[in-house]
């Protein structure tokens, strides 16, 4: 589904990604873990070209994407992204947030689009909040709207960058539940997270990054129970504390 080869990214002098090879197959759920600053967000942002790689190839379903504006736009419309800080559009209500992109990018007609948006809001448990504005929602509700908004583009892949890190502990569960349900439905997902419980339970594979490289990866349960490299052991040890 996604294939990344030889990805390198620097910010000025700082080399953040030092040659990443990474593939995700259709329907797979991959959790991306690693210490702060290891380049997890940058990798995710390169996948939909929010950050422009210095080198390497990104392909989705066998099609390789360059950084031409038209291709970038096409790639982004096929890849959904959920941010740590939600980034909902505060001047639009919940339904409008969900409907904006498919209306403008896919030119869906209002009727079917409204149906799709309402269905998605029902799935994330927020059908009754369609007319509310983001400012009046809790963090957990905002993040569930953000998920519905990304899904409304009917993406082939969903990327999550620490979707629960900015949330109060008591609402983390409701967001993880929505993600779990999405995974069960067969969505291809790449999730940067510190929620090891979620990784163990939902992920098919865990990828551990440090210093801009993939250090170790493996089937979720196996890897988390029995990491091979010292760095992964140290990291998991500190995370579980």
């Amino acid at each position, binding site marked *: 589904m996604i294939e990344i080869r030889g990805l390198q990214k620097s910010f000025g002098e700082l080399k953040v990604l030092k040659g990443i090879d990474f593939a995700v197959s259709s329907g797979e759920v991959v959790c991306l873990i690693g210490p702060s600053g290891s380049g997890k967000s940058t990798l995710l942002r390169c996948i939909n070209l929010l950050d422009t790689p210095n080198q390497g190839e990104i392909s989705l379903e066998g099609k390789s994407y360059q950084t031409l504006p038209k291709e970038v*736009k096409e790639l982004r419309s*096929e890849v959904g992204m959920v941010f740590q800080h939600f980034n909902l559009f505060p001047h639009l209500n919940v339904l409008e947030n969900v409907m904006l992109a498919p209306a403008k990018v896919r030119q869906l007609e209002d009727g079917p689009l409204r149906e799709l948006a309402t269905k998605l809001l029902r799935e994330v448990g927020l059908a009754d909040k369609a007319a509310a504005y983001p400012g009046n929602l809790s963090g957990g509700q905002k993040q569930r709207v953000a998920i519905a908004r990304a899904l409304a583009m009917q993406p082939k892949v969903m990327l999550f960058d620490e979707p629960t890190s900015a949330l109060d502990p008591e609402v983390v569960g409701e967001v993880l539940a929505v993600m779990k349900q999405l995974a069960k439905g067969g969505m291809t997902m790449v999730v940067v997270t510190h929620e090891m419980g979620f990784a163990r339970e939902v992920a098919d594979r865990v990828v551990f990054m440090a210093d801009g490289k993939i250090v170790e990866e493996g089937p979720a349960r196996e890897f988390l129970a029995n990491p091979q490299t010292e760095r992964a052991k140290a990291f998991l040890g500190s995370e579980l504390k």
Partner: protein
Amino acid sequence: MLTDFFQHLVGSFPALLKGAGYTVLVALLSMGLGLLLGLFVCLGKISKERFLRVLCSGYIDVFRGTPLLVQILFIYFGFPSLLQQLFGQPFPFDPLVAGTVAFTLNAAAYIAEILRAGISSLGKGQLEAAESLGLSYIQAMRFVILPQALRRMIPALGNEFVTLLKDTSLLSAIAVTEIVKEGRLYISRTYAAFPTYFAIALLYFVLTFIATRIFNRLEERFKIHD
């Protein structure tokens, strides 16, 4: 004495009110056109094209760094005389048009900066979220960034409009019969300087007071609840 005062206050009013028509007309026109031009200048200043950035920064610096009166005189007297020298025939310029052009160009520079501040106050997250959904840069600006920036900028735009209203008094220098000019004409007929200038001040105050109220209403109406 007091009856004199009121007599002239009332007597000067029809002429002043007629002048106020021009004042409001120029202020509204230059605010509207200035918003449009300011939008493009702002987009140019934040664009990735170096050339556009330099051009638009230069524009803003020049119009904010020189007195409005000089800009008005330049456009009304300076340009026609240059054209006359170049083409050897007179280029009469209607003072009202010249004034509106000067105010529009000037307002655009200030509005561009107001908008830029509004856009940068949104942070990068909004543009990234919009682009991550597949919206183009232009669509993201049109549907996500500008609607928010404009709403946040209503108070600053209100200030700009009030400034515009007051600054139209400068147009008396190029013989537009706005409030001050009408007042001076009345004084030259009656020598009633005190009541007339009092009436002029009062009229400006009423105009800016109303404008402020309208912008406060707009701010309330378009408030973003976040």
